[in-house]
């Protein structure tokens, strides 16, 4: 927990410039999956698929609506507008009971939550150097 605090603090301090433009997808450190396709990613996000290949339930960690990361994620990997997504989740809630993935406010939070759930997957913009508890996930075939 302290390490985490330290990491978070250092991240805030050590990155004056805008972070890397690329979204980096992270999963829990114990997740054996190394690479997925963009379609798979979209499926995980839209809860069309609920389990990793090894059976662990997927828990997508989204970013808060309106943030740039989210916008980038939606544009590049899902191909739907936020409005579409909103409507989608209204419909899903009604018809399948699934609710929208949790939305966190920062990379640090994302990392924190992802490292708490074995099946978690989230996206960050920053650097992952020295971050423990999560690892990078390759996503191929972006939109």
């Amino acid at each position, binding site marked *: 927990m302290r390490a985490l*605090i330290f990491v978070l603090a250092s991240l805030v301090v050590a990155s004056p410039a805008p972070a890397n433009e690329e979204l980096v997808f992270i999963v829990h450190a114990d997740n054996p999956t190394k690479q997925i396709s963009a379609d798979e990613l979209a499926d995980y996000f839209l809860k069309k698929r609920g389990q990793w290949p090894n059976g662990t339930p997927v828990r997508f960690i989204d970013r808060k609506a309106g943030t740039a990361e989210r916008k980038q994620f939606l544009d590049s990997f899902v191909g739907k507008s936020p409005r579409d997504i909103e409507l989608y989740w209204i419909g899903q809630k*009604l018809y399948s009971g699934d*609710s929208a993935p949790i939305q966190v406010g920062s990379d640090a939070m994302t990392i*924190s939550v992802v490292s*708490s759930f074995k099946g978690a997957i989230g996206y960050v913009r920053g650097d992952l150097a020295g971050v423990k508890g999560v690892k990078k996930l390759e996503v191929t075939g972006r939109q």
Partner: protein
Amino acid sequence: MSAFVQSSSIIRRLTLLISATALFFLISFAGSYLSSVEFLRGLTRVNEANRLFSLSSRISESIDSSAQVLAEIGSERSPSGPETRDHESIFKSAIKQANEGLDDAIARAKGFSEVRKHLIQAKRSINQITETSGEVFAELRELPPGYPIPAGTASGLLVANQYELDAKDAIRKVQIDIRSLSDETFNSVYSARHRPLLVGISLAVIFFAFAGLIGLSITRRLAISVSNLLSATDAVARGDLGYTSKIYSNDEVGRLTHAFNEMVSRLREQRDRSRRLQDVTSGLSRALKPSEVATVILDHGLPPIGALGGSVCLLDLASGEFELLTSAGYPESVVTRWKRFSIEAHAPISDAARIRAPLWFSSLREVRERYPHLSAEEAGNTRALACLPLVVEGRVLGVMAVSFVDEREFGQEDREYLLSLAMLCGQAMHRAILFAETQEAVRVRDEFLSIASHELKTPLTPLLIQVQGISRLLVRGKLHSLPPERILKMLKTAEDQVGRLGRLVEELLDVARIGSGKLSVQPETTDLSRIVREVVNRFHHEFEVAHCPVRLELEPEVIGEWDPFRLEQVVTNLLTNAIRYGSGESIDIRVRAEGAVASLEVQDHGMGIQSKDQVRIFERFERASPSNHFGGLGLGLYITKQIVERHEGEIRVASEPGKGALFSVTLPRHRDPQKNAA
């Protein structure tokens, strides 16, 4: 009765119909019960689902409450100790409620697998919430007042929040499933709402088709059969017994029709038989002779029962022999052989007469069993035989035998008919015999009257002449001119004629007395030899006239208790016959005493008596010679025999034609006191 095979049954069909109806109702009830059960099950399921729904709503509320607590904690900058405790208790109670609700729901969701899965998932999430929130609350409790929530705790809150969301997702899924389940159930029940009606209608259609078919098949034939039977009964009521109803089906009505036909044909047979018996009766009323009776019986009585042969035999009690009167249907040789036979013969007819009861033989085998010696020729075509004795007033007159060419069980009807026929035959035979006897008696009486009038006239005429002669002489006054010897002679002649007449009249009176049982016999001590001598002396003149020398062998004194007057009659009669039929040959008379009896023998050597007449001559008005040849009434030997028998004696004759006759009389010398009561 011809056989009727019942191959179908109205009753069975009706039973089938009733069973089908019952089955139909049963199936209908079962069907409607089943469909209502299904309906109920659907309703029950929907009801259960609704309960689960409301339960899950309450669970959801509890989860919300706990989530709210976490959210409140998260929103506070620095939660204080007491507030933490409040939060924790509220949180724990909410979680507890949620857990209880979930346990209840899981228990109720036994039949809802998908729902149960989600509920279990929710429970898992609640457990994770409890775990995570436990850590969070622990950290919060250690937090000094005024301190902000550390990041780790915040992170923990976030994780707990995530689990809360998972739980809520699961409950939401539960509710969505329940809703679609209810819809499904309702839709299936609603869409199947017509099914009971359709099933009922198709069952009803099948049933009515089935029942209709059976009903039609029963009633159609039944109606025809019954109306046919009704016209048949009408015909029979009118007296038309030739009706035969058609049998349309081999069921109970067919059986009834068949039985009816059989009954009508039996009635017809009986009517024919009684008509035939009437023919027999009217035929018999015209039959005067036994042979005529037998002919009527065989011609009219046998055809109605299908007999093709028969015979009537009369029994002569004196000789114990049967005489075959008439027969039909037997070969000539058999008829000749059985013309006369003894009652002791081992044959069906004799046996029936002896036991005085009918004998029934239903097959040739039965006849052979009892009479193995009967030849095949005698059996002929006979396959069944009935022998019935003709019994009238306790006496067996004869036997009627009836034979058939087929084996025959003699049932009640056959026996009654044949017994009636035998009774008619017996009575008619009895009448015919009596009639014949009456005719014979009349004939004999007429013959006697003609002889008697002739015989009585014979002495009367010369007597009248003599008397008239004397009275004429007296009238003319010429009587004194005649010599007294002449007048005496005339009177003597007259006296002789009177004597002769007197004897004849006495004989007639004796016969009358014998007939009424009043022949008087007054026994006294009598000497037979003396009587013989006296009679011989009296007949001296007659012996001379007939030129019959008489030889006497008389024992000196043959004494016995006899009526001398009657004995004189006997001797006189025997001597008269000897003279009359002696042909001028010698006559021997012997009288002997042999112990307790006396014997008298009169032997002549004249024309003799044929054996067939030797019995007859002792009967009334009988003479073994042409009627007018020798005069007399033919009563002599009859009276003689009666007198001898009244003395408990015997009279016999031994003779051959041309060799004379020997009459032997034996008389007991002393009467038996016990026998005296006559």
